[in-house]
């Protein structure tokens, strides 16, 4: 799975290109963890190009948000589509993340 990044001021948007499933979940977690560390937590995950997340993808996202949770933050997600939003709701995980409508709103949350 390709993972693109976009710089918005001091904030980096991480944009996975495709579903976060099985083997891709570990790569996704590593990439986001690396960006979070190098950018001191100023990252948002833009899921606008992610149609689906399976249990391993959810676990990866949960690991990331727990890691940030020790520092007073949650993983910021934006551009969440209907399917992924439903998955988050069904698994009661929606409130484990900060959800924003789009990248602009997520970036403004760092102000």
């Amino acid at each position, binding site marked *: 799975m390709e993972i693109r990044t976009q710089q918005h001021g001091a904030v980096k948007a991480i944009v996975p290109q495709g579903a976060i499933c099985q083997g891709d979940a570990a790569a996704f977690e590593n990439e986001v963890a690396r960006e979070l560390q190098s*950018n001191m937590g100023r990252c948002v995950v833009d899921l606008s190009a992610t149609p689906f997340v399976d249990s391993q993808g959810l676990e990866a996202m949960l690991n990331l948000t727990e890691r940030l949770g020790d520092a007073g933050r949650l993983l910021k997600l934006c551009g969440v589509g209907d399917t992924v939003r439903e998955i988050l709701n069904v698994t009661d995980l929606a409130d484990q993340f900060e959800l924003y409508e789009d990248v602009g709103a997520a970036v403004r949350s760092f102000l």
Partner: protein
Amino acid sequence: MVGLAYVGVAALVAGATVGAWWSVHAHETHVQRQASAQRGDAIAAALRDHVAAKAKADDFGAVRALLADLAASQSLSAARVTLGDGTVVADGREAASIISKIPERWPSTANTISDGPTRRAVLDVPGRGPLVIEINAGEPTGAMTDLEFFILAGGAAVVVATLAIGLAARRRTRSLAEVGDALAAFASGETDLGALHVRETGAGSGDAWNRLLNELATLRIRRRVEDASERRTVANAAPATDDIVPRVADALWIGLIGLESDLRIRYCNGAAGIFLGSTRDKLIGKAISDCFSDPAAAAELAKVGDGRTRARQVFETRVGEGDGATVLRVSVRGLTTGGAMLALEDVTQQRIADRSRNAFVEQATHELRTPLTNIRLCMEELLDAPDLEPAKRAQHLNVVNQEVRRLERIVGDMLSISEIEAGTLQLAPDDVRLAPMFEEIQTDFTTQAKTKNLRLTFAMPPKLPTMVGDRDKLTLAITNVLGNAIKYTPEGGDVTVSVRADDKELIVQIADTGIGMSPEDAAKVFERFYRAKDPRVSKITGTGLGLALARDVVKLHGGDIGVESVKDKGSTFTIRVPLGAPLRHAA
């Protein structure tokens, strides 16, 4: 193994089928040959008396005619009469090979015994010699009989069915084997569910196993969430002061650090670990001066260590290099018991926003000052010279009017941008009749283009649909793009507005032959306050807000805007807006 067994069975069936077919085929051929010989013998016997009578009368012409008819009507391979020495006197198939003159006598030397499909009958012509009648009723055709076809088709069907069953069985057993391997791996301690997944083959067992693992993963996640929730509940139930303080500190996105009097770290929360690029364990006991590479920051911290001040010190320092550097605001305060407390805040994004805001204020001030200066000069002249000639007076008033409109436009853009930024911009959706809207835009810009000696062309279809949108905001977006095209196209150039619509969307292309942009400028042209680095652009007034506003309005309508540009050749902006898309709220 299972697959190979099925291939073996299929091969056996194929061999048996071919063997059975060959036996039947040989039998059928033999029967056909016998039937052909019997038929040949019967025909030869039937001819015998007739040929004898005609030969006795020396009427071989009648014999030839009879054989020709017979060969054709009975589909004989050969039908001929030869003299005793083998000379052909009549041939139903090859009339050219017969002799024309029959000798008075002939010897008896020819083969008179029937062999294979060629049947022979001998008769004697008194006083002259023997005649031999040769009839060949034909070889077996070798055509496949119904029975043979049935055997081969049946055998092939059995082979195909065997292979198909073998393939399905192989897939199923392979899937089962992979599940078995996964179970063995699980028994050996593998807990990564991703590693335990098997290939999805479409067979039931593998997919069922994968579904089982997915269910297990979901349960694990839920368990983790429940555990975390339980931990929080337990923690809330026993709010011991010693425990709650670090937890409260960890819930802050502000780095908190407690220093000993020798300025070594005694405590830090999670956020401080992230800001200092390390972990708590590694930071405890470390000298705080080693955590900052900025010498100025180390000097500020040293003041606290010296005990020179207990007043709160605030300074900013950069962590990291280049564009990715983080700006930290550090607040330091000495403690009564010795040592100090540090609070670290990440203000990087705020500083970038400050720079943008300052740039905007600077640009806006410049933009507002120019028309205000023009207005003031004109008004002063009008006030100082009440008897100014009417033409001059009208000219001054016209300038004032133009500059006021310009101010209105600038302030409107700024307000709209600010509303979009704050998320308070309200669209007023309604049915928008596109044809009158574009006619109005064309009227507004025709004079402006003519003044600059530009050829402004509107290419519109005879009929345009009605769409749902905010007419004023759409007009604003299009006029901003069109205004830019006219502004940055030198005299004598062309600006073309092409409008088309299909069932789903409105497409507006605004092409000019202006100064164009470099790829770097084109990539940033829709950013707020951005103005191209080209010196020709800096000579022309502009806030850098028009295209940003156009983009925001188009996005709020669910559409998109893009640009293709070649430096010194011109630019083409393309706006696409859905005709009936639900409107988005400003973020």
